[in-house]
Structure formats: structure tokens, C-alpha cells
């Protein structure tokens, strides 16, 4: 009896061993090294004297980092609802499997498979004052009198990036939501129709509640992705004008690889990880509570 239980325990460990090994080698050990590095003055050019929590004290006084973090939070708060609402609306419109709707969602999904750097470069030129097609379109439609320099103002640059990212990733949420909508039992929807529920009632009182798990998952993935934004700002705004569009990750990159301060960059990364961890835990906790209710 006891031998059998012991064998079962070992077998259990054996099953999870590959995953534990993978996570250990590629997550736990590097993260441990990151923590150690964050307590040194390690530069890309060498060194690495232990300096305790000095890097963390420096972060506290680094207005550049807090400014970048605040900008990142603003970006996340603005972008996430846009992606969720637009993605869900598109899913509602294209969830049925007719040929036209299948074609429509394929077209909407296409930008998802383009690399983020490529799409950012594409939009950078689309917004260009001299040769950008978007400016030409807006001028031809008489929306604006003359071409705008989108990246000269922090607000316009912000919206330019939001537009480009919405185009790039809205299809991903849409596909997730379509899967959720299609998994709803048709009988429930048919019963609602028989009971006289109109389209909007069905959408808000049946489809949305039954898709809640996917909506919350998509929100979490989208919010974390936005908190880690880098490529789009690196390519489209270069952090400008006057450093007003630096994101937290961009700031970490600047410190680690442009200013060579690897130790400080590691400390910034730890702080950002903790912030994202706290937000994610809160979000998952709220999800669990709403599920229970």
C-alpha cells in the first residue's frame, strides 16, 4: 500500500518534471540572476560590484521612469477597452459561418500575422506629412486643411500609435470572441428568440455573460501586452516629442542598452514585473469573485 502510494508520488513528479525543468532553466534561474544583477552596478562594458538596494533607491528618484510608467498605464487604459469593445462588436457581426462573414473576418485577422515592427513601420510612413497616404486622404476629404505632422505633438503621436495597434491586433480579440460566441448553446439563443428577446437583449443578456471568461482572458492578455509596449513607440515616435512617449519597457531598454546600465535596467525590470504581477493578480481575483457570484 505504502509502496504503491510512494510510486504514485514519484510518477506524478515524473510527469511534471519536463515542465519543471523547462520553467526552472528558462524562467526561475534567469529571474534569479536578474534579481542578483539588480543589486549590482553591472555595466554592459563589465563590472558588477554589489551595491545592495541602491538601484531601487535610484528608481524612486527617477522621474523619467515614473513618467514612462504613467504614460504606459494611460496607453493601457485607453487601448484595452477599444480593443475589447471593437473586437467584440466585430465578433458579433461576423460570428455566423456564411462565406462573406468568413472572408470578412479573415481580412480583419490578416494584420495579426504581420510582425509588430513591420506594421509600425508601415503606419509610420502612412502618417508621414510629406508622403503619407493618411494625410492625403484626410486632406482630400477636407477633414483637415493641410497635412498634419502627427508625431510633433505627444497627444497626436499617442493616437497615431493607438490607431496602428488597433488595426494590428483587433482581429486577435475578434477571433477569441467568435470562438466564445460559437460555443454558446444555440438552444439558449433560440429560446430567447421565442421568448421575444430582440438582438440587443440577446447580445447583452445572453452572449456577453456567457462569453465572460473569454472576455476577461482577452482583457488580461491585452492589458499585459500594452504594459509591455515597446516596438511601436521605438519605431513610430522614438520616445518623442521631448521624451513624452517613452513607455516603461522603452525606458528599461534605454538604460540597459543605450546607457549600458545593466544593473539599473535589471532593477527597473523587477519593479515593472512586480507592478504587472500585482495588477494581474487583482484582475484574476476579480474574475474569480465574479465567477463565484
Amino acid at each position, binding site marked *: 500500500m505504502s509502496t504503491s502510494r510512494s510510486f504514485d508520488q514519484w510518477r506524478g513528479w515524473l510527469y511534471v518534471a519536463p515542465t519543471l525543468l523547462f520553467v526552472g532553466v528558462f524562467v526561475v534561474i534567469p529571474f534569479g540572476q536578474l534579481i542578483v544583477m539588480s543589486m549590482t552596478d553591472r555595466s*554592459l*562594458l*563589465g563590472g558588477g560590484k554589489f551595491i545592495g538596494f541602491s538601484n531601487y533607491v535610484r528608481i524612486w528618484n527617477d522621474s*523619467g521612469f515614473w513618467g514612462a510608467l504613467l504614460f504606459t498605464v494611460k496607453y493601457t487604459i485607453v487601448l484595452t477597452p477599444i480593443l475589447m469593445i471593437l473586437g467584440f462588436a466585430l465578433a458579433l457581426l461576423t460570428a455566423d459561418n456564411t462565406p462573406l462573414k468568413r472572408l470578412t473576418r479573415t481580412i480583419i485577422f490578416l494584420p495579426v500575422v504581420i510582425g509588430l515592427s513591420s506594421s509600425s513601420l508601415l503606419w*509610420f510612413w502612412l502618417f*508621414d*506629412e*510629406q508622403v503619407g497616404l493618411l494625410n492625403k486622404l484626410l486632406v482630400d476629404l477636407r477633414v483637415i486643411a493641410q497635412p498634419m*505632422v*502627427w*508625431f*510633433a505633438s505627444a497627444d497626436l503621436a499617442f493616437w497615431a500609435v493607438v490607431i496602428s495597434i488597433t488595426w494590428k491586433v483587433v482581429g486577435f480579440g475578434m477571433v477569441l470572441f467568435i470562438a466564445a460566441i460559437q460555443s454558446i448553446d444555440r438552444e439558449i439563443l433560440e429560446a430567447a428568440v421565442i421568448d421575444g428577446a430582440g438582438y440587443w437583449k440577446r447580445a447583452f443578456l445572453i452572449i456577453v455573460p456567457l462569453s465572460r471568461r473569454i472576455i476577461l482572458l482577452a482583457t488580461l492578455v491585452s492589458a499585459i501586452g500594452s504594459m509591455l509596449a515597446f516596438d511601436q513607440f521605438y519605431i513610430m515616435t*522614438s*520616445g*518623442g*516629442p*521631448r*521624451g513624452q512617449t*517613452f513607455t516603461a519597457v522603452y525606458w528599461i531598454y*534605454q538604460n540597459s*542598452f*543605450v*546607457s*549600458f546600465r545593466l544593473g539599473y535596467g535589471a532593477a527597473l525590470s523587477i519593479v515593472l514585473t512586480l507592478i504587472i504581477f500585482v495588477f494581474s493578480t487583482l484582475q484574476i481575483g476579480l474574475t474569480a469573485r465574479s465567477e463565484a457570484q
Partner: protein
Amino acid sequence: MSMRRTCGGLAAMLVASSAFADLAFADTMTMWVRVSGTNAAAHLVDLWNATHGDKIELTTIPDNQMVTKLATGVQAGEVPDLVSFDLIYMPDFMKAGFLTDLTADLKANPNFNSVAQAYKDIATYEGKIYGAGFTPDVSILIWNKDLFKKAGLDPDKPPSTIGEIQEDAKKIHALGPDTYGFYFSGSCPGCNIFTTSPMMVAAGSKILPANGDDPTLTGDGVKQVLETFKAMWDEGLVPKSAQTDNGANFTAMFKSGKIGIQGCGGFLISDLKHDVPDMNFGVTFLPGVKEGQVSAFVGGDVVAIPAGSKHAALAKAFVAWELTDEAQLEGLAKNNILPSRPALADNKYFAADPRIVTTAKALGIGYVPWVYHFADMVNSDSSPWINMLQRAIFDGDVDGAIKEAREKMKAIAAE
């Protein structure tokens, strides 16, 4: 007969064994070069490979990854035999001990004496020399002669002071709303240290500090140049898109034929000749505030031997060879690339185009700042240098911008 046959056989064996020895003992060196220096480096490496038994294998590294690659390579003991990189990293690399001391070899090399002084300065650390000029570039002022003519200006008389740039720019902009007098990339720190800082240096200013106590942004030159740029911006002599240009349009605007004057790199000459062969343009030194003040920023790549190179002796032979007349003229000048020895500017390949001769001579009058943390002070997107330019030119606060940049640069230099 038998004797003759034996001798013949021996001779044949000797020739064969010598050829075999060449093959058997020929080595292959590895060399890293950053993307923007690849074209020029490839010409030199091809010439070396064609004329030497030992070969070089060239590996291209993205510009922004070179520091990381070399730093991690040195620390892991996995380095190339030769490396060609942006010269501004030289002080940091020398201090970090990444490079091999070449003092004895280069001091004994007669060609080294005539290398542009800026390359010698930037490659010297605590009296020792760690590298040599390799594939140079230098900043110059370029003007569109066709637009000058249309604006009623003398097409053969370039502006010789920053004030004249502004005056000429006004007349050119008067040709029409889509024609602009002057251009600079307002969000590109690297472009501006290359083309704008020499105007300040020509006027007697010192830009960057080597340490926390070093004078920084000194003299009236900085203020006068910034005020002139601001005035040109306010008067609409510069396209609006310049404010956000991070370097993507650094050369494209001038190629459009709608820009009268621009600071730029010598590389633009061959680009223009290739892309817009009908454009009539001139090249001169970047001017300062007063007549006769000129300067240039010496850029491009240096070649060095990383510490831990497996073929250090052979790599030293390459460094010595690339300074010879053969390499400088047949490898570089023949391909419209500047030699790192300004004395070779007057050569048969450049004779047909005096603009290239002017550019090559700019190497001789140019400067390069010997400072640590150059990337932090200048090249970074959040650097004090680019913040100063933007705050002064686009926001109009010239004094505040200089004061803030001076403090931040000193703080960085003190690290």
C-alpha cells in the same frame, strides 16, 4: 638526361610543396562590421582576400547591437579577430579593456603618421593606441545650385557663415511654399551631432565633457547656432516635418530637390549622383558664426583587434595593410569612399569630382569628441543633446535648454 629530369622533378616538387604550404598554412580571420559600414569594409576585405593567402570572413552586425555583441563576446571569450565599429565607442571600449594594444605596431608604421588626427585622438587611451581609421565619413555642407540660381543667388558661392545660411535660405523659400531654404532632422540626435555641432565648434565652442568637471557647451557658438536655427524654424524656412524626423528623412528631403542647403555626410555625394544624376549641387565645409570659421565631425568606423583574438598577429598585418596607399586608393578611393589619410585626397579617382576632394579634406579639419558615455549624452532618444536642440529650436527657450543640457551632460560624465 636523367640528371635534368631529376632536377626538373625536384623543382616541380618545390613549387607544388610551396603552393601546398600556402594552402595548408593559410588562415581565415573573422571580422565583425556594423551594417552602415559594411559596403566600405567589403571593398577593403575583397581587395585583401584577392591579394593575400590568408582570408577574412566578414560578418555584418546591426548597428545597435554591436556594443552588446562585442561586450558579451569579450566576456565569453568569443570574439572576432578584427572589429570595425563606430569610432565614438572607442573610449568606452578602450577603458573596458576590450581591445588589443597596437601602439608599437602603429608607431612603427610610416603610414600611420598621415592618418587624420581625429582618428589618432579617438583611438588613444592613456598614451596607448588601440585602433586605426578604417572606413571614414565626415560631415559637410551641401547646397542645391539649381535652387540658388533660381533664387538669384550665385550658385558657385556657398554660405560661409551660419548667418549667410539663414539669408540664403530666406531667398530660396521665397521661390514657393513647397521649397525650403534649409533642412535638419529635428528628432535625430546622431544626425545633429554630425552636422550641427561642427557649426558650434567652428565658432569656438566645446560641446561635450570628458568628465564631470570638464567645461561643457562653452562659448557663444552654441547659443548663436541654436538661435539661428530657431529663427529659421520660426520663419518657416525649414519644413514642418523636420521636427519629427528621427533620421528616416535625413537624406530623402534634399534628394527631393526642394531643399536649398543642408548639413550632411560625405556619403550623400555618391547617393545623389546615383539617385538624382541631374541635380546640380555643391559641397563645402560646415561654417561657423564668422567668416573663415569651419569644422566637421569625423565619423565612420575604426578598426581594432578585440582582446582574445585568435589570429592577433595576422590581424595586425591587416591593420598595417589597410593604411597603405594600395588599400586606401584601390580599396576605398576607387569606390568613391574617403581614405582615412587626408593627404591622399588628391588622387586620380577623385580628380574628376572636386566635391569629393573637398569632403576628403574635411577629414583633416574635423573633430571627434573624446568622451565616455557618448551614447548617453548624445545618441540616446532621451539624451540632453537632443532635448537641448528641441527645447531651443521648437520651444524657443534657448538659454534654458543650454543650461539644462549642460547640467545633465556633466552629471552623465561624472558617472
